[in-house]
């Protein structure tokens, strides 16, 4: 059953994306819906699809939950607080390495931090080298570079055969009017959306797009972009981060908790729409030291 909250989330999901076929008639969808969209697409020639592989391991529970959000040849969008997105992304890189996956990452915000990713891998018992070797990336520093990278992403994906494609904050570089004339922003982002659609349809690979500003920050993504598998909203909560899946109306609360410590949810009646995942992450800083006081 979809809870009232989840239904509301799906409704907003529907209205924001304008993709009616993504909203299940009743209950959580087990398989992605068909590729019909309100905007007619340019016909895409589907070349040989790369074989679908498991993106993330099924355990720990977080990876199992996240892994269900991906589907071959479709895009999953993470939206919400960028700090939460970045930290979850680092966990995902490590999780992918655990499943012996390969990631093709297009970095649009220059926030790829190999040291933190290596630490996350070490927390899962992995050596830093295989974790970092499992990620192939290119960073864009201008909007024009990003467009060039997206244009060549399909060829790169066919060469490297990754298990997951990730586009991190692709629209970020288009928001600086000193670097990019405002009139170019929308046409270029629409072009990027079309290319992403072609990429996932051509390769059959799952694509994760992290867009902290949501769809409003990415013109053309909803209409011209790839088919969507799910929208995950990341909302910082006092206890940790809440992940909400728009497709299934399910939530996952990642709470900061030391290993071995037990939580109240263990003693409460089960909630079908929410899981709680203890996360031994350091607590966020609540203040900063200042020499001046």
């Amino acid at each position, binding site marked *: 059953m979809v809870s009232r909250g989840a239904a509301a989330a799906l409704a907003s999901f529907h209205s924001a994306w304008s993709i009616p076929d993504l909203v299940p008639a009743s209950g959580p969808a087990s398989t992605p819906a068909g590729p019909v969209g309100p905007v007619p697409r340019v016909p895409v020639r589907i070349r040989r699809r790369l074989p679908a592989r498991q993106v993330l391991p099924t355990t720990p529970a977080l990876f199992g939950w996240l892994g269900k959000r991906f589907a071959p040849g479709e895009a999953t969008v993470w939206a919400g607080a960028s700090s939460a997105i970045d930290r979850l992304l680092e966990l995902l890189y490590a999780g992918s390495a655990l499943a012996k996956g390969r990631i093709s990452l297009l970095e649009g915000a220059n926030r790829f931090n190999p040291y933190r990713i290596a630490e996350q891998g070490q927390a899962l018992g992995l050596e830093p080298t295989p*974790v*970092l070797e499992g990620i*192939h990336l290119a960073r864009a520093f*201008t909007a024009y570079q990003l467009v060039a990278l997206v244009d060549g992403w399909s060829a790169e994906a066919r060469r490297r055969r990754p298990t997951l494609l990730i586009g991190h904050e692709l629209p970020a570089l288009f928001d600086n009017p000193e670097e990019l004339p405002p*009139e170019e922003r929308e046409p270029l982002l629409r072009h990027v959306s079309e290319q992403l659609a072609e990429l996932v349809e051509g390769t059959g690979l799952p694509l994760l797009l992290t867009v902290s500003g949501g769809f409003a920050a990415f013109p053309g993504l909803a209409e011209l972009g790839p088919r969507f598998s799910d929208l995950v909203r990341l909302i910082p909560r006092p206890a940790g981060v809440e992940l909400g899946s728009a497709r299934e109306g399910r939530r996952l609360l990642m709470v900061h908790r030391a290993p071995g410590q037990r939580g109240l949810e263990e003693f409460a009646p089960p909630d079908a729409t929410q899981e709680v995942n203890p996360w031994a992450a350091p607590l966020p800083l609540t203040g900063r030291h200042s020499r001046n006081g």
Partner: protein
Amino acid sequence: MAEGWLFDVTEGRDGTSVVLWLKDGARGTITRRAEPFLPPFWVDGARTDLTDLARELEKDPRVAEATFQVLRPSLYDRRPRRVLSVVTRRNPDRRRVATTIDARGGYTRFHLYDVDLTPPHLYHLEHQLYPFAPVRWDADTVAALEPAETIDYALPPIRAAELEVNLQGCRRDGLVRGTESISTVRVGNVILEGPEEALLRTVREEVVRQDPDVLLTEDGDGADIPWLYRRAQAVGFNETTFFLGREPARFQPSRAAFSYQTYGTIRHREAAFVLPGRFHLDTGNSFLWGDAELPGLIEAARLSRLSLQTVARQSPGTCFTAMEMAHAREEGVHIPWKKNRPEAWKSGRKLLDGDRGGVIFLPPVGVHDHVDEFDFASLYPHIMVRQNLSAETLDCRCCPNPRRRAPGLGYRSCDRRVGLIPRTLEPLLVRRLAYKARLRRPGLSPLEREILQRRVKMLKWILVTAFGYQGYRNARFGRIECHESINAYARELLAGLLHSAERSGYRVIHGIVDSLWVRPLDPTHPPDPERFAETMSREFDLPLGYEGRYRWIVFLPAVTHGLGVPNRYYGLYSTGEFKLRGIGSRRHDTPVVLRRFEGELLQLFGRARTADEFRASVPRALARADAFAEQIREGTWPREELLISRRIVQELGAYVTFSDSVAALRQLAHHGIARAPGETIRYLVADRTARSWRDRVVVAEALRGDEPYDPGAYLELLARSAETLLAPMGVRREALLARWGLSSDKERGPYRSPESLVQRRLDETMEGIA
């Protein structure tokens, strides 16, 4: 047929020509020569798209012709291709037509070249001319008599005059409302005053009479020229009746003021008021003027093919890019409008290995003696040239097994062709070495020495920038893998030098990228440093220079963790010359009082010949600090010397915390003065505990000179300055403040807003009750 110099090329007012300003060598007069010039720009794209575009452009009234040509537009093209050449009817339409074409291609289908180069710059490039070229001309042609790269060139005779404008009832750096009339104008040695209309007419006549080639101002872009134009307009002159160049110019700036971000800091660039036929150089709006002055700027203008007025207002990076463009155009390569070459795909591991800088050691905090310093001269440019590191030659297709690979990264350097960057840099390195060699020659006149030194400094700036531009996202011919390779070669080199130094009897105590500080293992029998430098230069095939031996050098700690900071130290060479890095005297925002204090301390330490003597002079240094503190506390220190400078990083409204800078900005706003991000404000701290912007500071523009100041604020700054220099000797800020009877904790005043009417009434009520 006449001979002389090409001074400048400016854009013609008719939009279809350029104007050449030629100085007659025999008569010394300036000749204006208009040349029709409508340069094309180039469009590359799919054949069908270009055909459709050419058809469309035929209907565009702004376009004179659109024809197909076969050429190699891009640096990365191996074979010529069919591209569209577009010529507009007027030069000002070039960019507009280019934008239309780009939009037509959805901003992705077409690549455009040579769009944003100005017609004068293109004229230089297409006619093998350059600013200050010795030329011969007749009715048809103007030809340079020697190439721009000539090292031993003669400077043309240049007449310069200073221009300074003063307003009625205002200090030059005081509050200006914009409505004041002009009181005096200085042109060269002539000071003019009188009724404003007559005064302005006389200014124009005096400029014509003196006919200087260069008008030198200090803050002319921000004050003098706009003030003159504003007042000229106010009293009825127009652009054709009042002008300072050799022909009329608009009263508008040729480029508006703007703020920008570079290396993590916000900077501001004033509007540019350039003059046709005469150079307006604003020494206050020129990053390069301080080091390069006229000889250095002329050197840069010749090599970059940019006007002297442009070079003076641009960064060294822009000059370097223009030099790259000149070399690219010699090879028939055109200049991309929107650079889109991205970083290559790589693994996270490779990024970790590659995305790092040079070798940096943590220096041992404290005073050291018997320290020798060695330094590779122009290390990065030499690496780029030796290893052929350039965007198009790195990981080329033609050399799968080359001789050179970036250490640890494996990037290949082409063996078959020399890249654009080495081609651009090598002549600069040769020039710099040639000038330095000439400087060592005996018998140079002071003027010749000055000219050569300025040229060397200019070239140094350009060479320094050349490396950074490889990693700059908007560099026309940059590539981040080149940046990574240069660092990889430099790391390997310094690691090798470290081992060689240890084998030669040294112990390495500090190193930064291309410099090494070493101490002999046996100070009684130190190795010969000159011979070591020579041996290493041969071993590494790069010029390693011996900078000198220190009598003592102090490596300073970080305030946060106490470990050594690589680039914060001060020391005294055996020659008696100081080397200062990262201390207050090197910062632009240090008040004069602290500079004076540091200067006195350094003078005191300058008498020490060893580290022990240095330590022995610390009590005297503390006594000097006490004397400064005493005078500051008395409240009699000259206010001008207490002014603190701060570069503001955002608009006033964007600040969320109330600080001295915010108080100063609000005061300026109250006086009708707006400061843009990147501009500097100067203020006196009147009461650091005040929560009112009226009471907290006094901005420099409103300073009378007798205002009370906050001694506590300045004692804290003094204590911090003393701590910076003396921390390795155990001197702490808190201890100094306690010694001066001041707590390190500030006590804020109560929350109140004196400018609020409600607050005032409340205060009055409270007073009434009391």
